[in-house]
């Protein structure tokens, strides 16, 4: 059965530049499709949205018997997820820190301008290395309170952790998992040490806030602080880099929309939402039913691995008119780019501001730009999908 090998084909690196025909095949095969290895793929918008909101669906890999220590709140269930996410939200967003993300705008603009300083017409640049990667890294370092110079250090850990978290068909992944666990432990220690250096010497960053929380009931344990800080540091840049890069790639592939945006920069926020639908950084998330559940007539047994193909839901013609068309003026664009439900992306407000600022600042430079390589070389990862490099000629 062809549809039973979809996950294998989706994760096959050869299909990384354009997985969308496979997603169409997935939706054609049904709202949920069983894979040969016993996992399930969900590819239609309404079913994915329903599963993301279903309290019977667990995000915790331990539900399917995976051996791992306690994951960060991204992969925990309520009520524990709620407690940790709420504590992590205190210094980051409303109601306790309502202006935090907005206050980063000046900083983001400054970093953007600095990076753009050396971009001259006629030059070739790599959008990833010269712009889309350094911007979110600098921003998240500043926000968390991590020294920017340590980037080479946490880049290695981050790469290993992200690789271990990728979606894979069943197989021998013990080594990747082990490497991921080790990197997580080391990175956690590094971040806890940084936080503990702030005890009594506060800065205005999140690590300071976590370490100096006066109310013991609202304080993260050492282990929780490690997990949370690792999550925020990694999620704070590994996704935004793809959002910005995918944005540049998509705009250069659609010069008419690029022109439109140059003329009407007010459209940028909507264009970013359309990018999150059309070329989202996060293509898949895993969930596990705690009980046998029925999805559109298919019974999924408890403990099964259910891969929600968010990027496929975003292209579902049952939900979006002409879904394969990139349309920055699209109305009613409730995409799954940030997921939905209780795990709705914690960093979404920051990602939006960064992408809007980055693309807005880059627009004037893209007038005569052209892609040097199309498709560009992609990263290995199928879940966090994006170009590894994006060479363009200014």
């Amino acid at each position, binding site marked *: 059965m062809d549809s039973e090998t979809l996950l294998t084909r989706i994760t096959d690196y050869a299909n990384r530049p354009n997985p969308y025909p496979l997603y169409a095949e997935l939706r054609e095969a049904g709202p949920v499709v069983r894979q040969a290895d016993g996992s399930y793929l969900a590819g239609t918008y309404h079913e994915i949205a329903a599963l993301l909101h279903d309290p019977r669906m667990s995000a915790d890999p331990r539900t399917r018997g995976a051996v791992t220590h306690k994951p960060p709140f991204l992969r925990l269930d309520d009520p524990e997820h709620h407690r940790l996410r709420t504590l992590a939200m205190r210094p980051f967003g409303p109601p306790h820190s309502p202006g935090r993300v907005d206050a980063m705008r000046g900083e983001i603009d400054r970093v953007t301008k600095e990076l753009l300083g050396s971009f001259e017409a006629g030059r070739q640049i790599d959008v990833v290395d010269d712009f889309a990667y350094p911007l979110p890294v600098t921003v998240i370092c500043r926000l968390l309170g991590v020294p920017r110079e340590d980037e080479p250090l946490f880049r290695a850990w981050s790469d290993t952790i992200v690789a271990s978290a990728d979606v894979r068909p069943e197989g021998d992944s013990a080594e990747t998992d082990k490497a991921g666990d080790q990197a997580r432990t080391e990175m956690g220690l590094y971040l806890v040490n940084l936080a503990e250096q702030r005890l009594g010497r506060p800065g205005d960053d999140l690590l300071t806030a976590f370490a100096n929380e006066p109310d013991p009931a609202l304080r993260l344990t050492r282990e929780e602080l490690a997990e949370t800080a690792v999550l925020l540091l990694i999620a704070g840049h590994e996704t935004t880099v793809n959002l910005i890069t995918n944005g540049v790639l998509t705009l250069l592939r659609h010069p008419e929309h690029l022109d439109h945006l140059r003329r009407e920069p007010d459209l940028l926020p909507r264009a970013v939402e359309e990018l999150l639908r059309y070329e989202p950084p996060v293509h898949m998330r895993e969930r596990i039913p705690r*009980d046998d559940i029925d999805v559109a007539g298919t019974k999924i047994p*408890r403990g099964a691995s259910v891969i929600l193909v968010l990027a496929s839901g975003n292209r579902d013609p049952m939900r979006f008119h002409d879904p394969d068309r990139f349309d920055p003026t699209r109305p009613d664009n409730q995409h799954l780019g940030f997921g939905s439900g*209780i795990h709705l992306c914690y960093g979404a407000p920051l990602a939006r501001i960064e992408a809007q600022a980055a693309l807005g600042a880059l627009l004037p430079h893209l007038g005569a730009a052209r892609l040097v390589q199309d498709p560009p070389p992609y990263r290995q990862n199928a879940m966090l999908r994006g170009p590894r490099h994006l060479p363009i000629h200014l």
Partner: protein
Amino acid sequence: MPDDLMDGRIVVVGASLAGLRAAEALREGGFTGSLTVVGDEPHAPYDRPPLSKQVLLGKATADTTELPMRRDPDADWRLGVRATGLDPLAKRVVLEDGESLPYDRLLIATGTRARPWPNPEEAALDGVFTLRTREDAAGLAERLAAGPRRVLVIGGGFTGSEIASACREMGLDVTVTERGPAPLVGALGGTLSKLAAVMQRNHGVDLRTGVTVTALRGNGTFTGAELSDGSRVDADVCVAALGAIRNVEWLADTGLAAGPRGIACDAGCRAFNMYGIVTDDIFVAGDVSRFPHPLFGYQMLSLEHWGNAVDQAEVAAHNMINPGPLRRPHLAIPTFWSTQFGLNIKSVGVPTFSDHVVIAQGSLEARRLAMVYGFQGRVTAAVTVDMAKSLDYYRHLIETAAPFPPPLGAQDRAIAADVPIPSDVPDPKGLSHGPTVALTGYLPDRRLTVVPPTG
């Protein structure tokens, strides 16, 4: 698309949320004819939810809640003038200044107004308020900011509870009186209303339930009130939060099915006449409407919900400019929200259309829960407290008429989820305020007989 529907004269009576969104949707849908919007308040359309929250707290002023326009509806705005009559045969709306506006199609979105304290002399005392308009909110906010010794809130519905919450947040002493057994009982039923009562008392509200206010006292200025249990409350400010009156009086003798519970219409927002015959050119949207909903036994629902005003206005506008086969029904699942005493309360479905409830997730003790309401074995509503992200799941259960109690398996499922208990929805007559959802199907307003038209 027949051109004539996109052209001609449309009059919208009501310049609040539903009126504005309908006007925008008419233009969005391609209407090119003349569009007139009539409103009795002298302001451009403004938003009301902040009036009982941010405005009372002084975080926003009453004149800053203007509704953002999605697009300029290019309308002739007649603001500050009341519609006083309607001649459906001649197709004219009569305004209080004597002008009469001809229409080809009419949208009625006149909404509701605050139910005043019933004794006009007592209601006129300085310091006695209702809260519905921008002026009400500005006046009340000013009094609260001046630091009264005590505030008396009559009625423990959503508005009353939000006012009490704002008072406590400002450190003001406040007494709430509620004729029913607990606050919010008319909207949420017995179990959750107990949590509401606990929250109010924990936040220092002097909550008096099962009592009514019998008289307001004062000599020109409000000084206190007498209660049915013989006690007395001394206070400088009184807010009568007694629910709403639907603005239908101007339609008396028009032959439309307009009464105290609103104007009846079909699922496509077309008004009924008093015989239940649908009109061709008169549409209704927002708080003033009542409409049949298949998920709730086709009972004629009246909803005082922000979301309903928006959804229904869009459907009405669409149907006003499209021929029959392209018309859409208004089948949105009702939703509303409230924030009070630090809690975020969200509701989907119709909680009063229920016979049993279970706590499906969380717990009353944790102050974080999802309460699911069932009627005759299917899910009809859910209310979340500080758990709003779960709401879509329950909305789906309601839409698909899922069996009640809901399926097992939620990680943070309460033990109580196995034990459905009576939903304990009270008779609206026992409340000091109107419920925000009125199920009116089984409560006919009056006996109807066929009267042949004269003239």
